[in-house]
C-alpha cells in the first residue's frame, strides 16, 4: 500500500509539474513546483487547523469540550485523525468501476488545489498573479464537481448515486449566483485580477458597499461547498455520505481534504472580494488576511451548529427563485450605480434596503406560522365522559 501511495504521489507531482509548466509557460517551472509544494503544505496546515477549530467550536456551541486528549487543548487531534486515515485499510468494494473510483478523488482535489495558484495572501504574496484570477478560480472550481459525480457513479452504490445526482443539480445551480455576484464585484473593481480587486476597495470594503452581494455570495458559497444547511449531497442522515459512501482510508481523506480546502476557499474569496483582503491597520497584511478568512470560516461553522439542512427541492427553489434573481437585480443596480457614478453610500443604502426587506419578509413568514397547537385542559376532556 505504501508503494501505491508513493507511486500515486509521484504521479500527482508529475501531473502538477506538467500543469505548472503550462501555467508558467515553461519558464520558471522549478520555482513554481517549489511554490506549489509550499502551497500544499500551507493548505494541509490550514485544513488541520480548520478541523480542530470546527470540532472545538462546535463543541463549545453544544456545551461540550471538543477534542482535549491528544496534545494541549486537543491540538494534535486532527494530526492523529489524519494518521489514522492514512494507515487505515483502503477498501475497494467488488462492484465499483475501478477507473472512476480511483480517479475521482484526484479529479476533485486537483482543481481545488490548483486554483490556489491565483489566490493572493498579501501584496505580491501570490504564486502567479493572473490577470483573470477571479475567472480562473471560478472556472476551476466547477471541474471538481465532475469528480464528485464520478465518485458517486463509480461506487456502484445507490446512496452514492443519489448523492451525486444531488450534487450535480445543487452545484451547477449555485454556480450561477456565485458567478453573477463575482461579476458584480469585478465590475466595481474594473478588473478580474484579485490583487487589483483588493486594492480597489480603497475607501471602504465592498462588504459595506454591497451587503446584499456579500449575503448572496456567502449563501451560494456555502451551497457550493456543501456545508450545512446545504450539505444535502452528502447528508449523513439521508444518503450517508452520498458520493463518498464507499470510500475509506486515504482516499476518503482526499475528499475530506478537498472539502475543507474548498470551505477555506469560500472564506478566502469572501475576504478578498468583500472584506478588503489583507488591508487593516497595525498588523502585517498576511495576518489580517488570515484573521478575516478564519472569521468567515467561524461564521460558516456557526451556521453548521445552528441549522438543520434543507431539502433538495427547497434548495433548488432557493437557488433559482431567490438567489439567481437577486443576484441579477444586484448586477443591474450595480451597473446603474457605476454608470451614473453615485457615491458609494448610495449603493450601500439600496443594498441594505433590499436586504432589510428580505429579512422582514422572512420574519413575517415565520411569525405567521406560529400558532400550531392548542392546549385542551385535561379537566374538560375528563368531564366530557
Amino acid at each position, binding site marked *: 500500500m505504501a508503494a501505491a501511495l508513493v507511486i500515486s504521489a509521484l504521479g500527482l507531482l508529475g501531473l502538477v509539474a506538467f500543469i505548472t509548466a503550462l501555467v508558467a509557460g515553461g519558464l520558471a517551472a522549478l520555482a513554481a513546483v517549489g511554490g506549489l509544494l509550499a502551497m500544499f503544505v500551507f493548505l494541509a496546515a490550514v485544513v488541520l487547523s480548520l478541523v480542530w477549530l470546527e470540532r472545538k467550536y462546535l463543541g463549545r456551541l453544544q456545551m461540550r469540550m471538543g477534542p482535549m486528549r491528544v496534545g494541549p487543548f486537543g491540538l494534535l487531534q486532527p494530526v492523529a485523525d489524519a494518521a489514522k486515515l492514512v494507515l487505515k485499510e483502503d477498501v475497494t468494494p467488488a462492484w465499483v468501476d475501478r477507473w472512476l473510483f480511483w480517479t475521482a478523488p484526484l479529479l476533485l482535489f486537483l482543481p481545488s488545489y490548483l486554483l490556489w495558484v491565483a489566490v493572493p495572501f498579501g501584496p505580491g504574496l501570490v504564486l502567479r498573479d493572473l490577470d483573470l484570477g477571479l475567472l480562473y478560480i471560478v472556472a476551476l472550481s466547477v471541474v471538481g464537481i465532475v469528480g464528485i459525480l464520478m465518485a458517486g457513479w463509480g461506487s456502484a452504490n445507490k446512496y452514492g448515486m443519489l448523492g451525486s445526482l444531488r450534487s450535480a443539480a445543487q452545484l451547477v445551480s449555485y454556480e450561477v449566483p456565485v458567478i453573477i455576484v463575482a461579476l458584480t464585484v469585478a465590475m466595481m473593481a474594473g478588473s478580474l485580477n484579485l490583487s487589483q480587486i483588493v486594492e480597489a476597495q480603497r475607501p471602504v470594503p465592498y462588504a459595506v458597499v454591497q451587503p446584499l452581494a456579500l449575503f448572496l455570495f456567502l449563501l451560494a458559497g456555502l451551497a457550493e461547498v456543501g456545508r450545512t*444547511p446545504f450539505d444535502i449531497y452528502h*447528508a449523513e*442522515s439521508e444518503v450517508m455520505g452520498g458520493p463518498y459512501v464507499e470510500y475509506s482510508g486515504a482516499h476518503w481523506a482526499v475528499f475530506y481534504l478537498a472539502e475543507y480546502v474548498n470551505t477555506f476557499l469560500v472564506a478566502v474569496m469572501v475576504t478578498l472580494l468583500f472584506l478588503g483582503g489583507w488591508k487593516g491597520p497595525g498588523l502585517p497584511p498576511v495576518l489580517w488576511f488570515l484573521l478575516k478568512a478564519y472569521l468567515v470560516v467561524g461564521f460558516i461553522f456557526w451556521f453548521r451548529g445552528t441549522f438543520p439542512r434543507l431539502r433538495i427541492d427547497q434548495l433548488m427553489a432557493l437557488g433559482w427563485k431567490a438567489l439567481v434573481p437577486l443576484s441579477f437585480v444586484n448586477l443591474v443596480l450595480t451597473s446603474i450605480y457605476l454608470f451614473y457614478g453615485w457615491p458609494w453610500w448610495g449603493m450601500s443604502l439600496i443594498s441594505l434596503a433590499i436586504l432589510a426587506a428580505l429579512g422582514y419578509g422572512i420574519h413575517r413568514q415565520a411569525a405567521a406560522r406560529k400558532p400550531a*397547537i*392548542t*392546549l385542551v385542559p385535561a379537566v374538560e376532556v375528563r368531564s366530557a365522559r
Partner: protein
Amino acid sequence: METARRLEPVEINVNMGPQHPSTHGVFRMVLWVDGERIVQVEPYIGYLHRGTEKLCEGELYPQIITLFDRLDYLANFNNELCFCMAAEKLMGLEVPERAQYVRVVLCELNRVASHLMFYGALGLDAGAMTPVMYAFREREHIQRAFEAVSGARMMHNYFRIGGLKEDVPAGFKEMVRDLLPGLEQGISECDRLLSLNEAFLARTRGVGAISAQEAVEYALSGPMLRAAGVPYDLRAVEPYSLYDRFDFDIPVGTQGDCWDRYMVRVEEMRQSLRIVRQALEQMPDEGPVMAAGVRRMPRPPKGESYMRTENPRGEFGVYLVSDGSERPYRVKIRAPSFASVQALPRLLRDCYVADCVVVLGSLDIVLGDVDR
C-alpha cells in the same frame, strides 16, 4: 437499433436500513424512488423480535417486569406500570397512595426523557447536530434521578405488582423538586433552538401530514393522534392510576404534520413536569409502598384483563390472560410504535427521500417496541 428510443426516467429501489444511521435502530425500509420523489415504501421489521409475548408465558410474574423494561427501552417505567396494573386489575389489588404517586412521578419523568430523546433524534434526522446535545444534557439529569431511585439508568425493574420494589430513597421529593426548574429551563432552551428555525420549519411543516380520521383508522395513538387534532390522551380520557387528580393540558395539533407532532411533544414535556410538580405536592411523606397481602409470587385468579397506559409513544396495552397459576397464560402487548410504523407508507405519500427520515423521526418509534 433504428427505433428512436425515448429515454425513460429510472425508478430505482433503495434499501434503507437495517444499518442506516437514521432508522432509529434496526429497521429497514425499501424505497422505490423516481429521482428524489418516493413512489412506494415498504417497511420491514422484525430484526429485534425477541418473542417477548411468548417468553412471558414461561416466566413468573415478577420476572416478566424485566422483560417489559426491554420493550420500549426509552419508556421503561411506563411499560412496567402497564403490566403491573394489568395484573393488579385482575387481582383487584388496591395499590397504596404513596406508591401510586411515586409511579406517576417516575412515569412522567420518563416521558420527558423519552421526548427529549425524540427531540434530539429529530434534530439529527433533519441535519442539525446541536439539539441532540441539548436534549442529552437534560436527559442526563433525569437518568441520574432514576439511578438514585432504582439503581439503574435504564432497565429499572422497580415497579412490582401491588406497589414498588422498595421505598424511594430519603430526600426523593427534594431531589425531584430541585430538578424541575432546570428541566423547565432546558426544555424552553430546546424549544427556542429548534422550533421556529426557518430551515426546520421548511423541513417539517406540511410534511407527512395525516388527517384525524385517517389517524384513527390507522390505529395511531399518543402524540401522533393528538397532532392530527384528536384530544385523545388516556390519562384524561380513561384515567388510570391517579391521573384524575392532576390538572394538566393536552396539546392538540391541527395539521397532523411532522411539525405538529414535534410541537405536541415539546408541549407535552412541559405538561409532564406540571404533573410531576402536583404529584410531589400531593404525595404523602409516609406510608406503605406495597399493597397488603401480596405474595412474593403473585397468582392472579383465572380470568383476563386489558390494561392500557399513555406511553410517550402512544397507547401501550397489555392483554393478560391468566389461568390462575404463577405464570401468565397469555400476554399480548399492544405496542404504540407498531401501529405507527404501519402507517409509514401512507405518511410518506408524495414525499421526497429526505422527508423519509424526518417522517420516520417524527413517528418516534423504538424498535424494541415495534418488534417486541
